[in-house]
């Protein structure tokens, strides 16, 4: 009984953080049609930059996090202006191969960022210090305040994103972009402005989730492929292009991992999730809520 309760709570915390980590990946695919395989690199980048400024320059937590998020935004724009946009415009690449080229290019960027991080900050895993100390006890189970804050902050940010997309004019633009780029251009909206807005939001979102992830799981350059793989699995399971789908899929993957860790062994955490993923894709080839 106690184990069940523990799984319920820990699963909820980790799933909520996963959800925030995957939402950005889902957003950029849904609206720009870009599968950004450098996603994990962005998450680790912001975490490591934040950690570096906090530990080396003794900056306050908030300032460090702001710098981390800023670095993610800068790299997000670099990726867009130097790689994604030129490839999209390139006349040398046939149209039907663009998607594959952009995919491969983001993968290469991921390796470049990973190499740079490894070189600059070393390969030892880092942990962002807890936001607040202290432990809360609910009938024999202890949860740190930090975990509670992380889970709630993740849900709050996802909630804000939901409001932004569904309740504001900016959000309407993004929604329209997710339906048809041509349609949006025909309505007199300059597509490039929408992209710039989008990659900005993406950088912000990924930067914040990178810091929160690192506060719970820690981060190191070598965790980049795992994080990209995790976001990729969650987003595909939920269905590409559906943010709601990604949200629910995070809880499936998060709880599966937690259950395995508690009942079988922590070293098998990712395996059941992979099998469930294959199974679901066999039954529903477009994921749970997929549009593409």
């Amino acid at each position, binding site marked *: 009984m106690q184990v069940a309760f523990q799984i319920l709570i820990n699963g909820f915390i980790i799933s909520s953080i996963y959800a925030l980590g995957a939402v950005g990946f889902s957003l950029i695919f849904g609206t720009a049609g870009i599968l950004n395989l450098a996603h994990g690199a962005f998450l680790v980048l912001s975490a490591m930059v934040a950690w570096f400024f906090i530990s080396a320059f003794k900056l306050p937590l908030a300032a460090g996090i702001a710098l981390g998020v800023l670095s993610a935004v800068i790299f997000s724009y670099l990726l867009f202006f130097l790689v994604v946009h030129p490839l999209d415009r390139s006349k040398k690449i046939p149209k039907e191969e663009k998607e594959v080229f952009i*995919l491969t290019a983001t993968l*290469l960027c991921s390796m*470049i960022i*990973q*190499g*740079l991080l490894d*070189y600059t900050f070393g390969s030892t895993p880092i942990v962002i210090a807890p936001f607040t100390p202290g432990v809360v006890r609910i009938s024999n189970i202890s949860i740190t305040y930090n975990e509670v804050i992380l889970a709630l902050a993740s849900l709050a940010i996802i909630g804000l994103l939901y409001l932004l997309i569904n309740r504001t004019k900016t959000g309407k633009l993004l929604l329209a972009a997710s339906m048809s780029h041509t349609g949006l251009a025909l309505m007199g909206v300059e597509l490039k402005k929408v992209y710039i807005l989008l990659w900005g939001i993406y950088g912000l979102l990924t930067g914040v989730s990178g810091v929160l992830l690192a506060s719970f799981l820690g981060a190191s350059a070598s965790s980049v492929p795992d994080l990209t793989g995790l976001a990729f699995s969650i987003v595909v399971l939920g269905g590409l292009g559906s943010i709601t789908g990604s949200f629910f899929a995070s809880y499936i993957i998060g709880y599966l991992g937690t259950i395995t860790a508690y009942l079988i062994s922590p070293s098998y955490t990712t395996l059941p999730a992979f099998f469930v993923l*294959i199974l679901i894709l066999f039954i529903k*080839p477009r994921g749970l809520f997929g549009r593409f």
Partner: protein
Amino acid sequence: MQLQLSRSTILKFGLIPIIAFAFLPQFLSLYLLGTLTIALYFSVFAMSWDLLFGYSGEVNFGPTFLIGVGAYTAALFNVNTGLPVVICIILGTSVAVIAGLLLVAPALRLRGPYFGLITLVSVLILDQVITIFAQYTGGEIGLSLPGTLAASNQVNYYLALVFMVVSAVIFLAIASSPIGLILQAGAQDPIAAESLGFNLTKYKVLAFGVSAFFSGLAGALLVFYLGTASVSVVVSISVVLQIIIAVIIGGRRSIIGPILGSLFIILTGQWLQYLGQLDYAVVSLFALIILLFFPDGIAGMLLRKA
């Protein structure tokens, strides 16, 4: 880019390099010869990947699933049974082909990113299974093999060279035959290709089978050359990335490109070793620049001028 296989092209890009490669052992140090042998096996990995990516348009993130299955099956048979090395290699290759046919099942149902993820997951599962059953597979340390291909470095080199050339000829034959054209047509517009009466399923299964055969065989041969089967050489995600980079740098959909790319990436990898952790980043940056400015790769640049 479409390859024009005129007689002079074959002469320039086929015969001359082969003759040059045949004489290389006279001039190279044993260490470089060893590196080159690995690069030759790696070329077969890259060509197998190119057949799926360049021709049938499938982004396969799991080439090392096939390579690893071939390599580890052969290695496990060698360690646990008294079978001769050749039989172990044949068994490894056969199991890799079966694995390839298992992988084709989702490929026929899933498109683009969904298929990419399944292949990626197949590698991650294989990696985990090898780690979990460490008492049989040697886990992260690797499995040392009692059997070897040949004792002499020269013989090993020539074996790899012959294997690579034979594979390249077969891949080129497939790619320039109607099968290659139908695969490309299917990649560009599956509906149009099927409405012309081609059974794409049949050709995709064939492409996967051929790719799996050569991946598995090359994987099995490579571990017997190295004397150990380890995750970091035949399974890990970083090997997948190297294969993808090799094909992109060399020039996709050209079969010759992946060979050039593999030689490039393995040899520069040796030179860049003094950069430490940065070597990967530098090679990736180089690949990215090629991708942005010369999407047809080294082979594209060479053949355009030719």
